[in-house]
C-alpha cells in the first residue's frame, strides 16, 4: 500500500543507486514486515557514495550499527527521510573482522558519534574519522563488549538453562 509519491521516489532512488553503486544488490522489501522499503546490499564499498546520494535527497542518517556474524561484521546504515514521502532505506555491507571501512562523517557530521559507538562496542576502526576514541565505555577499557566471543553470550544451543 505504498503511496504514489513513495513509489516514484523508490523507483528514482533505485535508478540513481544502481548507476552509482553498480555491484550493490538493491531489493525492495515489504515495509509492513521489515520496517524499511529498500534493502541495499553492498559488496566491496561505496558506503560514502550512497551517503552522498542520500544527503543530496535530504535523507537523515538514523543509525550506524554493526552485527557480529562470528566470521565477519555486517555494517548497517539506516537512512530515512521526512521531507517528501516517508521512505526508509537500509544499507548493509559485509566486512572482514579486521577491515577498516571509510567513515561517512565527512558527509554526515552526526555520524562522528555513531561511528565512535560502533568502534567502542565492536572495535571496527573507521578511516578518516576526526577523533576515533571510545565514547561510552571507560577510556582505559581494553575489551569490545558486543563481540560474540566477549563475556557470556548464550548461543542457541544453551536455551534450556535460561528457562527461568
Amino acid at each position, binding site marked *: 500500500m505504498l503511496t504514489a509519491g513513495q513509489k516514484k521516489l523508490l523507483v528514482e532512488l533505485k535508478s540513481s543507486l544502481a548507476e552509482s553503486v553498480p555491484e550493490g544488490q538493491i531489493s525492495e522489501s515489504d515495509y509492513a514486515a521489515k520496517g524499511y522499503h529498500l534493502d541495499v546490499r553492498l559488496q566491496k564499498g561505496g558506503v560514502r557514495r550512497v551517503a552522498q546520494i542520500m544527503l543530496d535527497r535530504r535523507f537523515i542518517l538514523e543509525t550506524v550499527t554493526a552485527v557480529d556474524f562470528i566470521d565477519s561484521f555486517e555494517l548497517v546504515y539506516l537512512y530515512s527521510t521526512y521531507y517528501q514521502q516517508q521512505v526508509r532505506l537500509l544499507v548493509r555491507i559485509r566486512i572482514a573482522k579486521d577491515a577498516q571501512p571509510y567513515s561517512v562523517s565527512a558527509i554526515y557530521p552526526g555520524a562522528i558519534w555513531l561511528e565512535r559507538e560502533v568502534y567502542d562496542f565492536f572495535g571496527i576502526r573507521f578511516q578518516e574519522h576526526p577523533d576515533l576514541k571510545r565514547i561510552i*565505555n*571507560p577510556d582505559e*577499557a581494553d*575489551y569490545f*563488549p558486543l563481540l560474540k566471543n*566477549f*563475556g*557470556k*553470550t548464550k548461543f542457541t544451543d544453551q536455551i534450556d538453562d535460561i528457562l527461568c
Partner: protein
Amino acid sequence: MEVKGSPICMPSKGFQVESKEIPGVVGFAPVQDLLNLARVNALWPLTFGIACCAIEMMAAGVARFDWDRFGIIPRGTPRQSDVMVVAGTIPHKLVSTIQTLYDQMPAPKYVIAMGNCAISGGPFSYDGQYAIVNGADKIIPVDVYIPGCPPRPEALLQGFIKIQTKMTKGIIDANRRAEKAARRAKK
C-alpha cells in the same frame, strides 16, 4: 495472608534496632545527643541522581511527598551536604567520581543506597555483566539500603527516617569506632 489496613512500607514486626552497649565508648552524652538531634533534623542530601531512582528522589522533594518537612534541602556541592543518596546504577566510569564526592563531604557523613542497582546491581547484575559495579557498598560505606526499582518516594523518606533513628542511637559512630579499634588491634 490477609493484610488489612497496614501501610505498605511499615517495617515488619521482627524489625528491632539492637542497641547493645559498645564497650569503651566515652562520649559527652548531652552534647552528643543535642548535636545528633540537630544533625537528624537538618539532613542536607547531595543532589547526585544517576538514573531512574533520581526521578523518584526528585519526586520525594516535590509538593506531594515534600521532604522539606524534615528540614531536608538538597545541596549542589558535596561540601555542604551530610547525606549522599546514591540513586541509580554505578558503572565503572562513575566509580572514581563517587569516591571523590564521598571524600569531599565533611565529617559526619552518611550514605543511602537507593534502589536495587545501588544495593546489588539490581536488574542489571548477571554473570556476564561488564559495565556496572554490583552495589554501592563495594566502593563507599553505606548506612541505609532502600530496596525497590525504583523505590517509592515514601520509601526514600522512610530511608531518611531510618538514618535518623540510627544517628540518634549513635550506632553509626559506635560501629565506626569499633571498626577503628578492631583495625588498630589487628595491626
